[in-house]
């Protein structure tokens, strides 16, 4: 399986980027093998609007089943939910810390967005 983690850098040692839609990178990680791919999210960072929707589409296209991030807005949540991706918000520390927390079952799946829309 694959999980997506928002990241400030391209490595597992990088800090989690608390933003989802406008995260600098999104790492797609296999929690068992720790094989990963760093997706450059810069197009969404500078998007005029709808960055969360676009980032959610990207994560879905990569086949991730779970997203670990800090904050997830309502439109992003709706898109992730439609894609069948489970969301864990309020994540901090490094990407590796987040992956370990996930592997150890120490995460709680969100049932709604934890950030308001940016209007």
């Amino acid at each position: 399986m694959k999980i997506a983690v928002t990241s400030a850098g391209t490595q597992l040692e990088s800090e989690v980027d608390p933003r989802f839609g406008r995260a600098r990178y999104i790492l797609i990680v296999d929690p068992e093998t720790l094989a990963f791919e760093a997706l450059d999210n810069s197009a969404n960072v500078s998007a005029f609007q709808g960055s969360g929707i676009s980032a959610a589409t990207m994560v879905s296209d990569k086949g991730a089943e779970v997203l670990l991030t800090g904050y997830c807005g309502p439109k992003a949540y709706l898109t992730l939910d439609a894609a069948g991706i489970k969301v864990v918000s309020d994540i901090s520390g490094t990407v590796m810390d987040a992956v370990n927390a996930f592997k150890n079952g120490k995460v709680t799946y969100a049932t709604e967005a934890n950030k308001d829309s940016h209007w």
Partner: protein
Amino acid sequence: MIISVASGKGGTGKTTVATNMALALGEKVELLDCDVEEPNAHLFLKPQITRTEKVETPIPLIDLEKCTACRKCSDICRFNAIAVVGKKVLVFPELCHSCGGCMVVCPEKAIVETGRELGTISYGHRNGIRFINGRLRVGEAMSPPLIRKVRAAADPERVTIIDAPPGTSCPVIAAMNGADFILMVTEPTPFGLHDLRLAVGAVRVLGIPCGLVVNRSDIGDQKVFAYAESEGLPILMTIPFDRRIAEIYSRGKAIVEEMPEWKERFVDLYRKIEALATSRSGASQCVK
């Protein structure tokens, strides 16, 4: 003749100038309140409203029976208003700018038009002056489509006075674009001048003749006058910081009706605008 009354900075007196000029000119004019996020010209013109209608903007509705999730619609949308995840299609109506691109590119003809309410347009009149205003729906983020609908209701046989929103972004452009003259209302303060510079920059891009009204002309500093001179912007009227004018305004009354000597000044303001708008267009025709 379309005159758009703009300012850059808010609270400089756009509505005061627009409503008083309309009342001074009388029957031949119409006043369009295009400050749709906070319309207030009606408070001063006091028109009898005869009709109010809802205004919508077109947004896509997807027929999931026909949709093959090919993503052509989400790819063309610059505004992320359509997302395709797996075989599911999501539409975010509030992000849609009504360009219609998704409907054009859909190979399955699976997208039809539905509407999102933008707000309302009201029509009325006062002493033969035609009045129209737009009122943006609370929660709606996009005012330019509503502003364009208010302007589309203009009567080309009349002198159209537009009360524009403040600022220099899309709503102001929507209220100035295609006008024959931009009347900038400013005040001689650093804030007024700062925002006036930005607004004049926008007017220059649009290539529309422009002139100034300096309101509360005897406060602040003199820099706005120096700026006007250096930019070649004619000052068409000055309004002093006068307690009587402030009281008339605060009671929702018209200066031209309470202080009749101002009626001729506002008529004169219009005559100057008319002369500048026609002579400038004549000059640009010579250039061509």
